[in-house]
């Protein structure tokens, strides 16, 4: 017996909200059970499960997004909310304002430039290259910057999460290999390269590292919007 899921799935947008809430709740439980291993990041799991369910129910993205956009709209206010942790790190930030500003700005530009050139060298399309550029900053900001650069926000959202997972997984090993023992240095690099996912990992490792990672992530979120578009324009990518 076949059921016509596409007519069963009501046109009511709240279904999309319910689906997202339910799947994310379970994915988050799984993530906590797995002691927050970055590979099982709840966004990664939720996205894959929801895509699977939509495919199974033969629903298109528009049907899901009528509800999904209600959640998506809150990304703007959530970006504003980042002012709070940045404010909390202000006493730290004040003490080393210039080193942080310079390191963060150069860090995001080097990260973005290396991603773009590597992708171009490996034969990826221009759309992919531009979508890769803002991948190291927190998702809500990366999405709007990607839109501005002419990339694909959905693709950027995926890149951001995977980048965070990569940074969180290999960050500590890389710092050990480099001989970096100052948690302020490793924290800042983590926040600049792997945003919130890396910051969550940094908190698990060391408190100073977590604080500096949060600082790096916050400053990067602001700086990227100002420096990345003119930088790519200078390089002739825009």
């Amino acid at each position, binding site marked *: 017996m076949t059921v016509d899921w596409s007519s069963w799935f009501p046109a009511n947008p709240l279904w999309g909200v319910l689906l997202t809430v339910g799947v994310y709740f379970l994915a988050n439980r799984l993530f906590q059970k797995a002691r927050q291993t970055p590979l099982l990041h709840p*966004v990664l799991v*939720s996205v894959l499960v929801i*895509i699977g369910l939509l495919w199974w129910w033969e629903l298109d*993205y528009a049907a*899901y*997004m009528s509800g*999904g956009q209600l*959640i998506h709209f809150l990304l*703007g*206010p*959530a*970006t*504003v*909310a*980042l*002012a*709070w*942790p*940045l404010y909390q790190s202000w006493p730290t930030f004040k*003490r*080393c304002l*210039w*080193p*942080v500003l310079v*390191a963060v700005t150069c*860090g*995001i530009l080097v*990260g973005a430039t*290396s*991603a773009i050139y*590597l992708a171009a060298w*490996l034969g*990826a*399309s221009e759309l*992919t290259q531009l979508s*890769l550029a803002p*991948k190291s900053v*927190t*998702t*809500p*900001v990366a999405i*709007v910057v990607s839109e*501005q650069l002419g990339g694909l926000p*959905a693709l950027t959202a995926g890149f951001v999460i*995977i980048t965070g997972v*990569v*940074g969180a997984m*290999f*960050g500590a090993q890389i*710092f050990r290999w480099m001989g*970096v023992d*100052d948690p*302020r*240095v490793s924290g800042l*690099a983590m926040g600049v*390269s*792997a945003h*919130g996912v890396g910051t969550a990992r940094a908190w698990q490792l060391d408190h*100073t590292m977590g604080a500096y990672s949060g600082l790096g992530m916050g400053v990067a979120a602001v700086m990227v*919007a100002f420096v990345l578009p003119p930088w790519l324009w200078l390089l002739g990518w825009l």
Partner: protein
Amino acid sequence: MRWLLGLGVLIAYDQLGQWLMRTVQWPIPGSVVGMMLMFLTLLLIKQPPTAVVQASMSLLKHLAFFFVPAGVGILLLFDLLANEWLAMLVSMVLSTVISLLFTAQLMQWLLPATVDRTADDG
């Protein structure tokens, strides 16, 4: 109720940022401008308002949840992914490693010159 008021304030700052950038026609995301305005407000008023703090913390605690819908959008890009996934993955992993190495090296080089290391305990 406090929490709801805080959310209202966050939305207002976001909208203010959007409106400002549309008015002056700068290519800076409005939400980032809203964040900077909120940061300045917090610095200026000294005593952070409980409503905004509560709303911010609950949004940020589950920040990841809010980008699930955008992530699901990747299903529209199946062909692109099928063709370019290897280039995407390699450039993502390598550039993340480069970014970690470079930022840490630069920060290490910049820090001792300006800040006394021993003054940062605790």
